[in-house]
């Protein structure tokens, strides 16, 4: 028997895919995309910041930045807000993680589901709900004002502390999730070993448990700090103009483009420094448990007083967690303009929901967001999957650098991404096929694409790393070409990961606000900007109906992803 008789015919395509230079063919479009839509826009912003009016190199903008009190105060405020947010998020998140993972008390299961509710709230909706609940004209301050018959509201959430409250509520889940994972991974035998060696409770905590949690805490701290620095919606909602993100947009609206570019560059440097710090930290060796299959043990709360206290605290926890969603749901039924000085709106209607789908003006932003998010996500799938495959399977020069480069858009604040887009694409460039993109439909999908590329990339990368590489080799040994085995074997196996990343990217596109608000065009106004404009014109009902829609979409995507993850786990456990 000759091998030609049964071996597949050699095609030109097979010749190309089997060349050892095919790696570079595969990564060249990725390099081009990163160059065009990540590096080039960053470079344009940077070059604008270091040029004077005549186009000569000059650091006058930076001198200006570091000598203007407004800028320095903004930088100080941003750092202060971020540091305090890290501390408050850590306290709430870690305490919740210990309470729910180590203790058994009535209502624990219910609470451990609700504790993740803030993840389902779009950032803008989270900020708006706090404003409605605890702001100067909010439900609680007015409630106390009325029952105590006061002239003024007795308290209200405002300014920097308002921002910190919103941050704590929306970001403690990062700490909660990482601390929970670490606690579940804590090997009980370590504590038993310490006890057998004569350690007391306190020593076990300070010498064993807390050191074991440190890696998770450091990673979460860096993450929360970075997200807090980038936060835009909370300062906007509570009218704090002296933060970095707010200053960038203010400089733009005032026409001081050079200063806006300078502020963006400063914030970019901080963000990228934190990204590198995080990457470096995560690559260090973490504590890993030596023994397998440790069960989580929960201490039953026995003392009746503590039990009642636990139940009471659980109820308060549930209420605090549910209130933001409940208030948004409630106001989505309020007749616009019916909420003036009352505690809660006076008149209700389902008209807003009917309008969402029947009134062309109301439906418009929804349809715009769906379209733009879809375009972005298609790009994400193509480039995210290809990049993930190249990074996992191949070795090539500059791989480590490319890994960081792909993650840069994730670290960059949305405000900065928008400023970069404006710098790069407000004039014709080769990367935009000699078109001006700013002011067209395409600028927003492009911004979404850049912002969500890391998400799709990371998810695809994770599934590829999990996939047994010999499966691909088995396909090859059976005669399959690279393309055939990629299409028939690799893609079906990593599909759940791609799908999970894609759905998240899609829903993030639907809820994106920070970059959108700077670069949207009136004819393609996205959903979140729609919400903001409705808030601005006091059409709270419609704004909240939009918000409920966004929240439902997020919940659906999270549930679907949970299902995908579950199915995939059992499927891979053979």
């Amino acid at each position, binding site marked *: 028997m000759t091998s030609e008789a049964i071996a*597949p015919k050699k095609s030109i395509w097979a010749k190309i895919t089997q060349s050892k230079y095919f790696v570079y063919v595969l990564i060249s479009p990725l390099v081009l995309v990163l160059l065009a839509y990540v590096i080039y826009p960053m470079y344009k912003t940077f070059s604008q910041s270091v040029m004077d009016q005549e186009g000569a190199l000059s650091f006058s903008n930076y001198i200006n930045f570091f000598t203007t009190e407004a800028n320095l105060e903004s930088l100080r405020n941003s750092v202060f807000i971020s540091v305090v947010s890290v501390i408050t998020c850590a306290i709430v998140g870690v305490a919740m993680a210990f309470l729910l993972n180590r203790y058994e008390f009535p209502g624990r299961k219910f609470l451990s589901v609700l504790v993740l509710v803030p993840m389902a709230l779009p950032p803008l909706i989270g900020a708006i709900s706090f404003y409605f609940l605890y702001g100067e004209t909010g439900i609680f301050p007015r409630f106390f004002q009325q029952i105590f018959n006061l002239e003024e509201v007795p308290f209200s959430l405002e300014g920097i502390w308002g921002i910190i409250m919103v941050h704590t509520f929306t970001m403690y889940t990062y700490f909660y999730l990482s601390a929970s994972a670490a606690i579940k991974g804590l090997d009980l035998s370590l504590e038993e070993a310490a006890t057998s060696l004569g350690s007391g409770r306190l020593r076990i905590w300070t010498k064993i448990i807390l050191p074991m949690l440190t890696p998770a805490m450091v990673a979460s701290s860096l993450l929360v700090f970075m997200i807090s620095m980038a936060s835009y919606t909370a300062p906007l909602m509570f009218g704090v103009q002296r933060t970095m993100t707010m200053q960038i947009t203010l400089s733009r609206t005032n026409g001081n483009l050079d200063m806006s570019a300078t502020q963006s560059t400063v914030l970019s440097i901080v963000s990228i420094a934190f990204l590198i710090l995080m990457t470096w930290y995560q690559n260090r060796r973490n504590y890993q448990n030596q023994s397998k299959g440790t069960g989580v043990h929960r201490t039953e709360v026995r003392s009746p007083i503590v039990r009642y206290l636990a139940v009471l605290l659980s109820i308060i926890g549930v209420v605090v967690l549910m209130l933001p969603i409940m208030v948004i749901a409630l106001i989505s039924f309020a007749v616009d303009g019916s909420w003036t000085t009352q505690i809660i709106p006076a008149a209700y209607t389902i008209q807003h929901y009917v309008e969402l789908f029947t009134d062309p003006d109301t439906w418009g932003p929804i349809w715009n967001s769906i379209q733009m998010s879809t375009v972005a996500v298609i790009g994400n799938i193509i480039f995210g999957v290809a990049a993930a495959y190249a990074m996992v399977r191949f070795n090539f020069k500059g791989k480590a650098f490319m890994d960081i480069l792909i993650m840069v858009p994730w670290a960059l604040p949305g405000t900065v991404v928008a400023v970069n887009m404006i710098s790069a694409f407000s004039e014709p460039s080769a990367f935009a096929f000699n078109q001006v993109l700013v002011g067209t439909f395409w600028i927003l999908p492009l911004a979404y694409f850049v912002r969500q590329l890391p998400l799709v990339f990371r998810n695809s990368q994770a599934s590829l790393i999990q996939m047994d590489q010999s499966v691909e080799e088995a396909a090859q040994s059976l005669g399959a070409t690279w393309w055939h085995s990629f299409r028939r074997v690799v893609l079906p196996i990593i599909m759940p990961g791609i799908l999970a990343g894609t759905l998240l990217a899609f829903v993030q596109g639907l809820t994106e606000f920070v970059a959108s608000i700077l670069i949207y065009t009136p004819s393609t106004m996205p959903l979140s900007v729609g919400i903001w404009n409705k808030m601005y014109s006091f059409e709270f009902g419609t704004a909240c109906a939009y918000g409920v829609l966004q929240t439902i979409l997020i919940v659906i995507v999270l549930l679907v992803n949970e299902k995908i993850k579950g199915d995939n786990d059992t499927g891979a456990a053979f």
Partner: protein
Amino acid sequence: MKSVRLEQITKMFGKSRAVEDINIDIKSGEFFTFLGPSGCGKTTTLRMIAGFYFPTSGKIAFDNEDITTVKPNKRNIGMVFQNYALFPHMTVFENIAFGLQVRKLSKSVIREKVEKAQEFVRLVGYGDRKITELSGGQQQRVALARALVIEPDILLLDEPLSNLDAKLREETRVEIKRLQVELGITTVYVTHDQHEAMAMSDRIMVMSEGEVQQIGTPQEIYNKPDNHFVASFIGESNILEGTIKEVSDNHVTVDVGDGILLKGIRENSSPHVDIAEDKKVSLSIRPEIIEVGKGSNSIQGKIQLTEFSGVSINYLVKIGNHELNVMIINSGSNILERGDSITLSIPENSIYFMSEKG
């Protein structure tokens, strides 16, 4: 079926050398095994035959066709992976059919061939099962069927039994050998288990640290080990160092110290050893061929340790500064205890001369 030839194969990974100067001729239809401890380069060599690695230097040929840099999918090989590498998203039928679909055979032909393959590995009726619904042994047989159904020129097996439990391993070993004999397919088998290698192979290549130690039939490898490594890796062996005292036409007498002289037959020596008076030499003596009682090469010793394993009794016997492992088949007679004296004899034709350690 094709023959496989490896000529001066060397493979470097960066600066570290995985295998060096491998030369083998595997005959058509032969069952050839690469045996060695982990990290010895046996899997690397197999993967070069499969085409997943290309050698840094040297040539690989199937029959007389140079395939050194041909991609794996053009080699028409069947490979069974250590972890089976079954496609988790496909059924048993789809897994087995994969290679046939690649070859663009018609649906009816594919169905016929897959069913035949299922019969062959005794998995009839399992076609619609998911891979996750199979036991380890069944997964193993799917992997075999998938590799064989494409009628490969060469079958490559990379530690296929290592993920099975002991009983299943035995069964599957017999099964693989049966299939190989029935098909007469050239087979290259990788394992670190000497029993597997001995039981299945026509010839074995023993490897260590990237180099070939010896190539030969199981009997040759066991009875005539070329060096210390082979002697101690394959089965157990007592290895003694000594100086040659006397050489006659047929016999060699070696002084192993403590005034003990051992006499062996001259032709029982590795081709690499220099048999001449006053030369240093190593002796390999298998524990099971040492006899209790007087005979040729009689020596006196004291028992240090006694181990009863059912089938056999193992003694560790101290003779001067040497310790000898002795294995006696259990015949129901008395067992000697620690401290007892024992007389041993070593048949002249069971001493094997190897080159000195080093």
